[in-house]
């Protein structure tokens, strides 16, 4: 039966449109419109002005993108965040899955451990950063334990170690959330599969590798994507932990540079160009990850 245009748009249950409208409006207001406006700004010589101020905002084509891409600080920031993701995402997946698996077993103090892993996630970064500064400065606890093996310069002021340290910090901070995702996914893995594996002579490791890992693959896809997206948005840690992306820009992230140039220095057109490039990069990365990690889902 042929349906009208309205019918095709609203589907078989038009009342559904009423229910999704608030969220569509929300998405349009806080995501689609800002993104569209950011794209607009990135192609114009744009700066913020007071209402009533009459200024020229000429179309400049790709000039802002050329400025951004020819700026070594921006290129460095994109490289830094790639280093961050290469460390943070695999570490997050491995630790979150391993710990969730352990916490899913009938161990003593299970609730205590679950809460312990979740506490850093719900604690404000500003508060936790102070603890990490104490741990990782040259006279901190970590260097005291390492003794002569402690790096010089110390972790957060060492241009080679600053970003890995930030990546480890963020992994630790976010881990509780990803453990929760895996714990939920583990409830859906059928016990029959474990029993069948045991009957086939699989030990615990083989059972984990051949039953658990494939069983939670949808969750792994989600964890990888979420860790990538939140990691690419890195701002608070280089802003607070390494004093504005130091040392010498070694831990600067694209969002930090976007903030410096767009807000602090009053060049929102440049900031927007960085933002648009980051969106494109994250989308590309997410597609690649979905292609490899989520291949069996499809």
């Amino acid at each position: 039966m042929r349906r009208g245009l309205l019918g095709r748009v609203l589907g078989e249950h038009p009342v559904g449109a009423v229910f999704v409208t608030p969220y569509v409006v929300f998405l349009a207001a806080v995501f689609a419109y800002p993104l569209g406006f950011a794209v607009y700004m990135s192609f114009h010589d744009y700066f913020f002005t007071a209402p009533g101020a009459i200024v020229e905002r000429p179309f400049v084509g790709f000039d802002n993108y050329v400025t951004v891409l020819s700026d070594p600080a921006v290129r460095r920031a994109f490289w830094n965040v790639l280093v961050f993701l290469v460390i943070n995402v695999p570490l997050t997946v491995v630790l979150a899955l391993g710990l969730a698996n352990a916490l899913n077993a009938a161990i003593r103090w299970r609730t205590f451990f679950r809460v312990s892993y979740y506490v850093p996630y719900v604690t404000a970064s500003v508060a936790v950063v102070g603890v990490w500064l104490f741990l990782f400065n040259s006279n901190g606890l970590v260097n005291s334990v390492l003794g002569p093996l402690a790096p010089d310069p110390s972790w957060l002021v060492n241009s080679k170690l600053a970003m890995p340290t930030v990546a480890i910090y963020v992994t630790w901070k976010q881990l509780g959330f990803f453990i929760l995702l895996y714990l939920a996914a583990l409830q859906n893995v059928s016990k029959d599969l474990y029993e069948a594996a045991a009957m086939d002579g699989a030990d615990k490791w083989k059972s984990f590798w051949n039953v658990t890992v494939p069983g939670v693959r949808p969750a792994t896809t989600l964890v990888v994507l979420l860790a990538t997206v939140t990691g690419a948005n890195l701002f608070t840690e280089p802003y607070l932990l390494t004093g504005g992306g130091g040392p010498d820009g070694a831990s600067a992230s694209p969002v930090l540079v976007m903030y410096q140039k767009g807000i602090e220095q009053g060049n929102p057109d440049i900031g927007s160009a960085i933002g648009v490039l980051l969106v494109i990069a994250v989308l590309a990365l997410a597609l690649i990850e979905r292609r490899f990690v989520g291949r069996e889902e499809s």
Partner: protein
Amino acid sequence: MKLQAGLLALALAGSLVACGDSGGGAGDADAAASARGPINIWYSNNAEEVAWGKQMVAAWNAAHPDQKVTAQEIPTGKSSEEVIGAAITAGNAPCLIFNTSPASVSQFQKQGGLVPLDSFSDGTSYIEERSGDVAKQYKSSDGKYYQLPWKSNPVMIFYNKKAFAKAGIDTTKPPLATYDEFLAASRKIVASKAAKFAIYPAPSNEFFQSWFDFYPLFAAETGGKQLVADGKAQFNSDEGKKVATFWRTMYADKLASQEKYTGDAFVDGTAAMAAVGPWAIATYKGKVDWGVVPVPTSAGKPADEIHTFSDAKNVAMYSACKNRGTAWDVLKFATSKEQDGKFLAASGQMPLRKDVTAAYPDYFAKNPDYKVFADQAARTVEVPNVANSITIWQTFRDAYSKSVIFGQEDPGTALDGAAQKVDQLAKQS
């Protein structure tokens, strides 16, 4: 902050501009200049300034019930400048802000957010009569005053007498006038373990951090030059390189730390010296037995020839203000000799007016510790009032951080490289 949030902030601010483009205009400005009625003001959130602000507003309101002033602390944000910039864009900035950073004035001006104070018949004369020659540093590149020079915190070297005594250094006239003396004293402090570090300027990369390490010494070494003058960078001069080399030695010899410190290293005893203005005295009370000397120079200039960074905060009038006649009157009232005296008494910060010591002899007789700051206030250097000011400072800081703090490049080469970029930025004025 998430990327989406960043884009949202950028876009919403931009869309507010787009929405507001058709409103207002210069036609209303003349009427606003003489309009009188209620106004809003913002002031800083430190306890001393809040106390002063409240009494100032109460005094004004008591005498002018038909032109009521409503005051509040600057809303919190990552920085005051960010909050003010957003308020300008949204069109809801107050009439006056008693905490306007001179470094941000060019940006606010570009945004169309400021009222030139010259537009009032007695604007220029009031500013120049109150502040004297120092006022000229606050003129914008178009020759107008978009800020009233209000108060300064001349940066000097505070030292901890207890730590100096432990290190065997004279505590009444410590040898800190030349770079060699400063380095020798610093080595004694660290070697004797009187403090872990001699001094602890923030080693982080924020654009404004150079105001408290390089810039005061540069002002002193050059006899009062700004970072940029006549559209050209000045910091890669021989004097600038001497200052950079001095600080490089401090970091290389671990007399200053490369690591971020949470807290006040001077108060905690981690550092025996601090480069800061008189606002900090209140925080040292009962915690540190301190003395103060001018910043060092390579040859040890006499104290009465030494310039330093002003660390000033000024008052600006914002273009969203409707009753500008009242705002101008309030501005003059708040910076009158009487109110400046009350501000000095409440905060210990120096009003940017001619000959502060002569204006308030009783205060300095009762508070002799502050007299040295009043003397120094006569020789202060402001940040250059040029376009791209923040970008220029960030460019400088990046080069300074890389070479001086972290030693990854020769300081002279790094400053030369930064000067080329800064020259380009300054040309865009």
